């Protein structure tokens, strides 16, 4: 084996530019695969972390008549939470309404949340106010879409529990920066207790968010959804995007492997005399096959080394500075921050090394099998077989 490695190394070095072209394209493919997967993993981790911090907590309880995916259910989907200790839950009351920024009408979801909650990272402390005007907080996405700024006073209109219109002017106390569109887009957060009074829904909530300390016993009128269940759709979206993106690097890897395959086929054709000499000097056919396979596999080893030399400092820098996401991508309904920090794990890198080396070894071995069928005398003569 040692001899095979030595010979393979010398042969590759001797091949010069041809070797470096193969190594270069394989290294580029390797870097691209690692980068893409690292980016998606980084996005996934950030999206999950932010979703838990801003929206999911340790899980949700929805009123039995409220379905977050069904806007028809908002009107009647509310009830009283029969929980003794409210320190481990955040009750939220949801109603539909309209906001009138600068004389324009926009439909919004009005959400009442306790100002003193600490389970979610929403800056609800801004909802505490002694002023007569009700304070409200909105996300930066909605602020941009509605052209409402921090400090503005805007009128909101809604229907109370009996269907009568009501309207008040609210004060935008804070525009928060949050990467979770589902707590931002088209939503206005209001202090829960005044909001309940305004809507005539005292003690009522549409849902509540829990923390780790909450005792998850069964509440007959409420449906429980664990954090894992809530995160599942997000994970599925990221996995689906990952699978979609893999087509690109599978194609690139295919091209790189085809280059190695071609090189091997050409080598076996052009190096017949060399193969004949190896056999004449006492090497078995399988040893020659191994030599050529090692040569091919060595492309991938060299590519991995080259990729590590270039990739380690490059990826370290990227993972520190992050990648800025264009504004247009942030307006989607997916949780994506302004800057995504790719996550390059050892398992990811090890898996990718294994994939590239195994694939390169396989495409090197396939044409090398022809050597086993060669007649050494004909090979020595250099006659095409």
């Amino acid at each position, binding site marked *: 084996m040692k001899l095979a490695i030595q010979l393979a190394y010398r042969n590759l070095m001797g091949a010069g530019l041809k070797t470096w072209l193969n190594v270069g394209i394989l290294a580029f493919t390797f870097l691209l695969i690692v980068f893409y997967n690292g980016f998606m993993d980084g996005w996934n981790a950030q999206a999950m972390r932010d979703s838990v911090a801003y929206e999911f907590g340790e899980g949700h309880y929805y009123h039995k008549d409220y379905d977050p995916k069904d*806007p*028809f259910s908002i009107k009647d989907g509310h009830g009283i939470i029969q929980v003794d200790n409210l320190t481990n839950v955040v009750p939220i009351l949801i109603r539909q309404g*309209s906001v009138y920024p600068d*004389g324009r009408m926009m*439909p919004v979801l009005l959400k009442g949340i306790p100002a003193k909650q600490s389970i979610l990272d929403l800056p609800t402390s801004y909802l505490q106010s002694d002023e007569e005007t009700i304070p409200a907080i909105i996300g930066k996405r909605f602020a941009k879409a509605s052209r409402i700024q921090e400090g503005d006073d805007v009128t909101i209109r809604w*229907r109370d529990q009996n*269907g*009568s*219109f009501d309207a008040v002017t609210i004060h935008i106390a804070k525009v928060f920066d949050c990467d979770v569109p589902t707590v931002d887009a088209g939503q206005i957060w209001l202090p829960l207790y005044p909001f309940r009074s305004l809507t005539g829904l005292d003690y009522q909530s549409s849902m509540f968010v829990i923390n780790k300390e909450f005792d998850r016993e069964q509440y007959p009128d409420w449906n429980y959804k664990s954090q894992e269940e809530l995160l599942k759709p997000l994970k599925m979206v990221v996995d689906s995007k990952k699978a979609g993106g893999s087509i690109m690097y599978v194609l690139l890897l295919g091209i790189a492997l085809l280059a190695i395959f071609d090189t091997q086929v050409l080598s076996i054709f052009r190096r017949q005399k060399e193969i004949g000499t190896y056999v004449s000097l006492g090497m078995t056919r399988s040893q020659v096959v191994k030599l050529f396979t090692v040569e091919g596999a060595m492309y991938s080893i060299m590519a991995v080394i080259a990729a590590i030399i270039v990739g380690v400092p490059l990826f370290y820098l990227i993972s520190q500075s992050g990648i800025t996401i264009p504004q247009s991508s942030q307006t989607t309904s997916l949780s994506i921050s302004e800057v995504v920090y790719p996550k390059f794990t050892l398992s990811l890198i090890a898996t990718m090394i294994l994939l590239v080396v195994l694939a390169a070894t396989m495409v090197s071995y396939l044409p090398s099998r022809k050597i086993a069928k060669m007649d050494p005398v004909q090979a020595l003569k250099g006659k095409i077989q």
Partner: protein
Amino acid sequence: MNTLYFRILLIGIAIYFQQGIDAQTTTAMDPVYILEQVDANMSAKNRIIHAKMTVHGRRKSRTIESKSYSVGRLKSYSEYLAPAREKGTKMLKLDNRLWIYAPSTDRTIQLSGHMLRQSVLGSDLSYEDMMEDRSLLELYDAKLIGEETVNGRETWVLELRAKVDGVSYTKRKSWIDQERFVPLKEELYAKSGQLLKMIELSEVSRVDGRWFPQKMVYKDMLKKGKGTEFYIVSIQFNASIPDHYFTKAILKS
């Protein structure tokens, strides 16, 4: 002697008519009576309206022509006739559900919740406003708070406060024409007392034995703009409307 009898008779007749006039004035000024008369003019078991709605946008105005069929307050079907862009769009309201059919997509969608609060084709009317059509007497307690002149006509100013739950506007102010019992102006308020909408009604004419305004200008007071004009080209009260007009099948027919 005959002259004396004649004088007594004349005085008697005069007193009789005076009492009659007083009684009529008192009855007319009773806010409930006023509302009854308004409802008699404005409400009908069913109606067919051919109307033009002019929406004044920030830059330009556009007119939408439609024909609507309604029975009571629960069933309503409308079809847009113009402009070409809206032509063929149909809207069906059954109870508190509303469906819209768009010919461009050949699809029917049901509106609910916040979508019902959006304006109809950019106008100052929301789908909810169009779905609100119960009689005033059924919904409000009325109080006569004064008399004013609107567009040269003497009106009674009524303050209406909801007496039942589920009324969209818990308070309204109506300026009712003293002669024709038709509102000439209305202000609609939120529970908090904030003025939400203003409606100006004009061009009152006689239709099927009742007075009815041909032109209405709706203004959402929370929105900027000149409001939305609603002009009735023709209206038929208590006409016969086939039942199939109020089924979902009509939307794609």
